[in-house]
Each structure stands twice: as structure tokens, then as C-alpha cells.
């Protein structure tokens, strides 16, 4: 890649209010961010911006005013062609999170990522040229559409990167799953809602277990447990209690179960009192690995991972650290490594980690929601026979 290559990027976002994903991500391209001990300014230019919903709390107009070099566009096609007839950018930043969109009967927010993607690839097809595309979070709430997005990226042969910031943020401790390790059980304790932060929990698990011996083999079946069924499953040992305990011991935000104490380990009764609507996803990978994601709102406000690795009795564990601007911080810097990886993709034309990870977690999110909707039944997932190899190099934030 020549040093003189300075990519032009189009930004396509649902909305741009303070602390929306669109704001976090696009701002980093516009204003730079702290990286490797300096204020880093991406060596590329965001030249156009499409915002689907510009409401009263919008800040995109402020950004456009302060960055007159960015063209405000009223359609996605315009953002990609800059008003001409052909694709005129070297990369696209797609952020379809936040904004007012209807929910499905299963409660999934219908963020228009697929629709935006379709409009983007139409320009690619019409121009006979496809450029790297970053898609924030899962591919689509709808599995069929997600699969189509993936297939289209392969058909048109463009670099496609997606997913959560969880796999790439800081870890406390700063450890990665040893490449080629034997893993038979993995678990994440986290917080947030269904069809929302459950995806982040699934990506937390996936970015670790994909490094196991043989690589990812896909998922055969998933079952959700909610409310009373969750507590029953906990009592029955459906998932390994020591892994859950280890994950809770990595949290920095364990709700004190007792008044006057700032940090005590909760009993089962404490947990049942603190967590009003617990959700678990338990799923089986094709090679026998069992994974679990526990959404425990009211107990923690962070993402903690634990697994049994290489036959060791003691769990391997870490926290994927999100400096969350919910009062703890002012800047959601976990977007910085995500944007930095996207920058590398725009410069090199190669995705830094496989989009198959997010294809799988997209399918798992939808299947988990499906299991919940169908009364927490076991859902077979033959469509999730997704196999891939993790990158050898660790991609989480360490520098």
C-alpha cells in the first residue's frame, strides 16, 4: 500500500446524538482519539455523512458545521457517490445502532443495517467496484438478511468487518485465550437487555473460544433460560458454577448485596433478590464446547469471561473492560480500538478479524431470542455450522 494512499470514507449512520454509536464512531474519524500515547488522527478523510434520523438531540449538524469538508447527504447513494454517478469513496462506515425503529413481535429492534447495506452494495454493483465496509454490532436482527450480507461481501469480494467493541477493548488482566488451547466450557457474566447487550456477551465469549484447538466449528443448538427457569438452571448446575464465580470475581461493579458493605460476594438468595430478570443462553458448539452467556442486570455492569482451559482446575478469567460513560467516564474509549482496526482495514483492504465471528454471534443472538420467544425451548441451529479460524495475533487493546 502506497504511503500516499489516503482513503476517502462515507459515513452512514442511523442517528447522531450524544453517546450514540454513530457519534462515538464517526467522531473518532473526524476529531481523532487517544491512541498509543498520543492524540491520533486517522490517515483518511471522512468525506460524506448520511444520518437517517436527525432529531432534537442531534449533533451531526454541529459536526458538519465544524467539518465543512464533510458533505451532508440525504441518501446513502449520495454519500457513496458524493453526488456523482459512481462510487467515489474508498471505504464505508456503517453504524446502524440507536434511533427510533420498530420492534418485532420477539422484541428485536429493527435497526436497518441490512437495508443500509443493500443500498451500499447497490452502489458497489452499479459502479463495478466494491470497497471495505465496517458494520457496527451484529449484521442484522434477521438471520436470513445477515447471511445474505455475508454472502454478498464474499460475492463482491470486499473486506467486511463487523461486531462489538468487546473483543477489542482493554482486558483486566490483559490476557488472551492461548491459541490452540483445549476449551470445554466458557462463560460470560454481563448485563443489558435481550437483542442488545446479549450480543456483546456472545462476542465476548466468541472472541476467546474461537482461538481454541481446531478453531471455530459452529453451533449446533442453543437454549435460553429466563426468570424462574434461570434460577432453577443455576441450582441444577446447567452451567459450571465455578466459572460463574470466577467471572463475578473479575467484575469491578458487583452490586453490594448487603447494606453498609461495598463489596461482598453474593449468595444465591442475594442474586435472586438483586436480579429481577436474569437471562441465560447456553449453547453447544459442533466440537462439543459448551458456552454460556448470563445477563444479570442488577448484579454487574461489566463483561466478565471465564473458561476451563487445557484441563486446568482453576478457571481462566478476565474482564473485557468498557470505560462506560454512564457516570463512570465521559468518553466511551472502547470504540477506539474498534475504529483503529477499521482504519487498518481501510488502509490495507483486509479485515483485521473474521466477519464469520459476527455472522455466528448474529445468528446466536437471533436464535437466543427465538428460544426465549418459544418458551425457552432448545433450538437446533443447523444454519450456524459456521467454521473459521481466529487470527494468530491478539487483536485486543494492549498498547
Amino acid at each position: 500500500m502506497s504511503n500516499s494512499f489516503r482513503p476517502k470514507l462515507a459515513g452512514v449512520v442511523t442517528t447522531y446524538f450524544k453517546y450514540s454509536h454513530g457519534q462515538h464512531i464517526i467522531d473518532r474519524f473526524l476529531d481523532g482519539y487517544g491512541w498509543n500515547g498520543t492524540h491520533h488522527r486517522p490517515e483518511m478523510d471522512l468525506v460524506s455523512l448520511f444520518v437517517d434520523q436527525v432529531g432534537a438531540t442531534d449533533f451531526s449538524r454541529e459536526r458538519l458545521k465544524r467539518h465543512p469538508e464533510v458533505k451532508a447527504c440525504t441518501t446513502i447513494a449520495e454519500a457513496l457517490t458524493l453526488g456523482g454517478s459512481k462510487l467515489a469513496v474508498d471505504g464505508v462506515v456503517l453504524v446502524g445502532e440507536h434511533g427510533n425503529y420498530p420492534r418485532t413481535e420477539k422484541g428485536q429492534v429493527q435497526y436497518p443495517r441490512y437495508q443500509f447495506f443493500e443500498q451500499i452494495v447497490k452502489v458497489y454493483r452499479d459502479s463495478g467496484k466494491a470497497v471495505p465496509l465496517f458494520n457496527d454490532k451484529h449484521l442484522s436482527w434477521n438471520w436470513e438478511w445477515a447471511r445474505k450480507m455475508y454472502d454478498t461481501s464474499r460475492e463482491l469480494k470486499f473486506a467486511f468487518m463487523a461486531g462489538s467493541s468487546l473483543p477489542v477493548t482493554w482486558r483486566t488482566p490483559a490476557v488472551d485465550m492461548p491459541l490452540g488451547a483445549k476449551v470445554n466450557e466458557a462463560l460470560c457474566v454481563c448485563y443489558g437487555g435481550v437483542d442488545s447487550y446479549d450480543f456483546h456477551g456472545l462476542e465476548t465469549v466468541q472472541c476467546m473460544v474461537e482461538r481454541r484447538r481446531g478453531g471455530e466449528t459452529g453451533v449446533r443448538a442453543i437454549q435460553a433460560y429466563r426468570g424462574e427457569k434461570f434460577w432453577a438452571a443455576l441450582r441444577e448446575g446447567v452451567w459450571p458454577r465455578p466459572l460463574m464465580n470466577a467471572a463475578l470475581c473479575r467484575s469491578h461493579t458487583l452490586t453490594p448485596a448487603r447494606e453498609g458493605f461495598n463489596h461482598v460476594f453474593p449468595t444465591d438468595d442475594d442474586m435472586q433478590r438483586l436480579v429481577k430478570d436474569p437471562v441465560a443462553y447456553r449453547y453447544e458448539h459442533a466440537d462439543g464446547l459448551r458456552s454460556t452467556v448470563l445477563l444479570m442486570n442488577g448484579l454487574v455492569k461489566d463483561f466478565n469471561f471465564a473458561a476451563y482451559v487445557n484441563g486446568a482446575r482453576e478457571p481462566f478469567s478476565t474482564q473485557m473492560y468498557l470505560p462506560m460513560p454512564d457516570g463512570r467516564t465521559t468518553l466511551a474509549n472502547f470504540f477506539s480500538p474498534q475504529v483503529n482496526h477499521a482504519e487498518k482495514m481501510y488502509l490495507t483492504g483486509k479485515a483485521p478479524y473474521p466477519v464469520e465471528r459476527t455472522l455466528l454471534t448474529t445468528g446466536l443472538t437471533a436464535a437466543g431470542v427465538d428460544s426465549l420467544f418459544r418458551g425457552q425451548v432448545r433450538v437446533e441451529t443447523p444454519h450456524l455450522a459456521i467454521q473459521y479460524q481466529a487470527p494468530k495475533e491478539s487483536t485486543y487493546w494492549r498498547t
Partner: protein
Amino acid sequence: MLTRRAFLQTTAIAAATAAPASPKRIAIVATVYRYLSHAQHMGDRFLVGYPHEGAWHHPDMKVVSLYVDQKPQGDLSAARAKEFGFEVYPSIAEALRCGGKELAVDGVLIIAEHGNYPRNDKGQVLYPRYEFFQQVAAVFEKDGHSVPVYNDKHLSYSFEKAKSMVETSRRLRFPMLAGSSIPVTWRLPSIDLPLGCVIEDALMVGEGGSDAMDFHALEGLQCMVERRGRGESGVKAVQMVEGDAVWKAGVEGRYSKELLTAALSRSDTPLGLTVADGRTQDLVGSGELQKIVKNPAAYFVEYRDGLKATMLMLDGAVRDFNFAARLKGVGQPVSTQFLLTPEPNVTYSACLMNKAEEMLSTGVAPYPVDRTLLVSGILESCLTSKVQGHSRLETPHLQVTYKAPSLPQFSRT
């Protein structure tokens, strides 16, 4: 000099406590024990355990006595004593002797932060750490036996008192550990300076005012720079300036803008425009820093081996603690954030109590108390500079020399 009688008692106690079935007996000497006071969140670690290396760890120790100097509204001392089966004693000596005639504990935690105590003309809160320590040491001396002592935060607001504390610990031959949780908490990124490195310049950014948070920031600086060259050589002069003089010093190159940018690049809490609309900021490059920091303070530290380091208190700019240094032979500045995890868990205090536990259980302090002695002196002299017209002060008394521990001591596993 131990008397024969005291020696026999010492060995008797040692023999009693060496039995595997009897956990170490701990006395806590605190100013106050109310929710989220240091005594509560540190002392409780020995009562209810704490997370360590991915497991809930219960120290093999038993708190057997507590002394609290003040019992304000919200005092938890009586409730804790009742629940965990120990006594609250009306004096430090009685707490150490558990109401008996001889020292009856294997370790002492002095946690004298929080509570109502007056301030001196330098703005230092006169927490009675020295006074508590003296009473602890008096028991050791009288009873002819000493046990490890952990002292939370700086040793004393007064370097002379702090020095006397360290000398007493050496004279009576007991291990002593002190200081802030900043040196031992998680770091983002998880780095330490290479032992023996050559530091060309170092800068620390802190916030939260004096005298409390400036101590933490100075200890953050010290735990990094002590790893240089042949070890710590002591400090020959300090100066503290405030207000516009801080920006002027920056223009004059008295501290490095590159290092300031590096330190701030590690922050997760930039204020000003970030609070207004969420944007990222290059606070130095944009000039916003001067606008949002109403009363900056710079603490200039000149070490005896020639290193000059700066600690900037930038209230209004950020709400976290970040360090940067330029090392000889390394192209880019080295920088990191000392992660102060959120309330109420404040897990950094678990990191610190793990170090205290290590000392209480092994009898060896994991890092030298001289660090905290030096920082106690740097802080006092900087605040003297402040009240003496922000003048530069020679500090011949700060010839505190020591070696940093060879292994990193911060939380990383």
C-alpha cells in the same frame, strides 16, 4: 534490645501463631469506620474477603480488635464487631493487647483517612497517623515484641514525623508497608517502566485537589520513576506553582507538551466539550485545556540524580490519573492510566489489601516504605512552596534512597 523475658514471650507467641490451625490475628486502628471510608473498604477485605486473580479470596487472618478514633453518624464499628466476633477497644494499646497485658496480635492496619480533623495553613488535613503509629510502637516497645504494620496512604503530613515512623520501624525491626492504591491497581495499558531505564522526562496528571488526591498522583509518579537507573536517589528541590504560572511554565518548556498530550491521551474522562456533546478531544492541541482548568497546579520535582519530573493537578480537565515518560532510546513516550475502578467496589483497594496481606503473612513488605516516606516529604515541601510564594525550595532532608522492587507490583493477573 530484647530482655530475656520479652524474648521468651516473643517466641511463645511466635510458636502459638505458627500453628497452621490459627490464623494471623489482626488489629485495625482507624480514624472512622463508616460506609466507603478507607477503613471500611480496606478493613472489610479482611472480614468478608475480596476478589483476587479470578477467585474470592479469604485471607487466612482474623480481625480480633478495632480502635476507632471517631464514631460519626453511620459508624459501623459496633455492628462489624458484633457480626465478626471482635472487640472495639477504647484505646490503641488495648486494641493491640486485646484487653490483656501483652501484645496479642500478629499485625496492625493503621487506616487513618477520613474523619473530621483540622487542616494546617498548608491545607493538609492533620490525620493522626503519626500519633496512632507512636501508640502502636509504644506497645511494641513496652511489650518487647513487634509485628508488621500497614499504614494507609502517606505516613504523615509532616516529613519529620514520617521519617521518625520509618526509623522506629527499623529500630524495632518490624516490616512496614504504606501508601496509595495507585501504584498497585490495574494499568491501561498493563505496563511498567523497565527496571534500570534512563528517564529523560516524566509527567503525571492527577485531579481532585489538595491535600488528598495530590498525594495519590505523586505516588503514581514515584512508583514509576523509582525504577530508573540505579534506583531512587532522593529529591533535591521542589516547587509548586498555580494558576497562569502553570501554563506559562508549559510555554517555557518546563514540562513537556508531548508528555502532557500522551498522559491525557490515556484519559477516559475528559471534561468540557466531551461532557457537552460526547466528542473526543485533543485538549492540549486545541487549547481547550486552559479554558476548562480554572485553577491548575504544577508540582515540580528535581531529583538528586538530575531527573526533573512534573505532576499536574488539572481539576476540570479529567477525572483520572495518567502518567507519561520519555525514556532514552525509546521513540515514543511511554504512557498509561492508573485505573481507579468505580465506587462502591473500589476494587483497587482489594489490590492494595492484597499487598498488605502479603506483608502480614510473610513478614516482608512487597515494596519499600521509603517510597511513601519520600512522597510524604515531596508533598509537604510542595505545599510549603505553595504557602511561601510558590518559591523553589531546596530539600536536603529528602535524601531518601532506595531500590524499587525488581518485579512489577501492580495488578496484572
